[in-house]
């Protein structure tokens, strides 16, 4: 398996699994306007996933399409962060995840625009504007829920705490990104900046920055939480029941 294929898969799977979780809110968000906002965000993420998985298929060179990669791989073949697959939970949990993940994606794509790989640079150039809006959307909600009522503050803090043990995985550097120097972005290089931005939002929201000693990892190696299997069952069910079906 080539390094570039593996790396593109990481980015594509993050976007795909995040899109699936975000889309779960359509028709279930606290207000109609938020249904549409999260729907837009989910579609942005899905668009990124399509471009990346399509490219991963080309790089691999054995004829797998974006659909083959999305619908016909098993849990252990997925390379997404565990953060992306966690259940959506309370609305504040989803917002906490979006703040962490979109801020990460924003910093990543800003760097990836300079990649020597033209396709990755192109995808990042388009996506960076989208994720800047995702960061803004999450930030607006964290501020309002955190600095809202006693109950909204409690829930926002609970969301920030629940997602926190899955954040260190985003910045794990490994041999793969080092071998792809110039093409891939080593996420450890922007960990401090991510932390600074997150802390600023959390401070302003009157919540407190979570402190957690234990941090989960394994998503990049295909080791996932029990939640990914259920997510994939829903995502892949129709395509696997009716292979090759079109409409």
């Amino acid at each position, binding site marked *: 398996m080539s390094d570039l294929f593996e790396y593109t898969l990481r980015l594509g799977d993050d976007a795909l699994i995040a899109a699936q979780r975000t889309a779960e809110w359509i028709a279930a968000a*606290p*207000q*109609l*306007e*938020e249904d*549409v*906002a999260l729907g*837009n965000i989910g579609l942005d993420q899905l668009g990124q996933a399509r471009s990346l998985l399509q490219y991963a298929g080309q790089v691999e060179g054995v004829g797998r399409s974006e659909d083959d990669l999305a619908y016909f791989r098993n849990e252990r073949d997925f390379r997404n962060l565990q953060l992306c697959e966690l259940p959506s939970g309370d609305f504040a949990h989803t917002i906490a995840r979006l703040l962490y993940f979109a801020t990460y994606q924003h910093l990543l794509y800003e760097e990836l625009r300079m990649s020597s790989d033209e396709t990755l640079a192109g995808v990042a150039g388009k996506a960076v504007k989208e994720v800047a809006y995702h960061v*803004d*959307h999450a930030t*607006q909600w964290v501020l*309002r829920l955190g600095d809202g009522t006693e109950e909204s503050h409690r829930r926002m803090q609970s969301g920030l705490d629940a997602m926190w043990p899955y954040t260190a995985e985003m910045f794990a550097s490994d041999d793969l990104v080092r071998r792809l120097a110039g093409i891939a972005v080593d996420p450890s290089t922007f960990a401090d900046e991510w932390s600074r931005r997150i802390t600023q939002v959390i401070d302003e929201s009157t919540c407190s920055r979570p402190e957690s000693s234990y941090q989960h990892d394994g998503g990049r190696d295909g080791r996932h939480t029990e939640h990914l299997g259920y997510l994939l069952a829903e995502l892949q069910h129709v395509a696997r029941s009716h292979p090759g079906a079109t409409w």
Partner: protein
Amino acid sequence: MIEPLWEVFIRSRRGLSHTHVGSLHAPDATMALRNARDVYTRRQEGVSIWVVRAADITASSPDEKDEFFDPAGDKVYRHPTFYQVPEGVDHL
């Protein structure tokens, strides 16, 4: 939670003025602007958005319709239809 209603005005790419497109609920002006972006500009409908609290709009009342609007009905001389268009002026 009952959130205030906001009226949304959008200026299209080629338009000169903001046009009313609809309304939405939001807790404050900042969120109203973002909701308007998400709900009303998904298909590149505009390049500028105004949001106004519906409660801040002073509107004419349907009860006053007669004295407000009827008197203008029979004053046809207010319309520019009695002028002779000079010859050679094509696009007046």
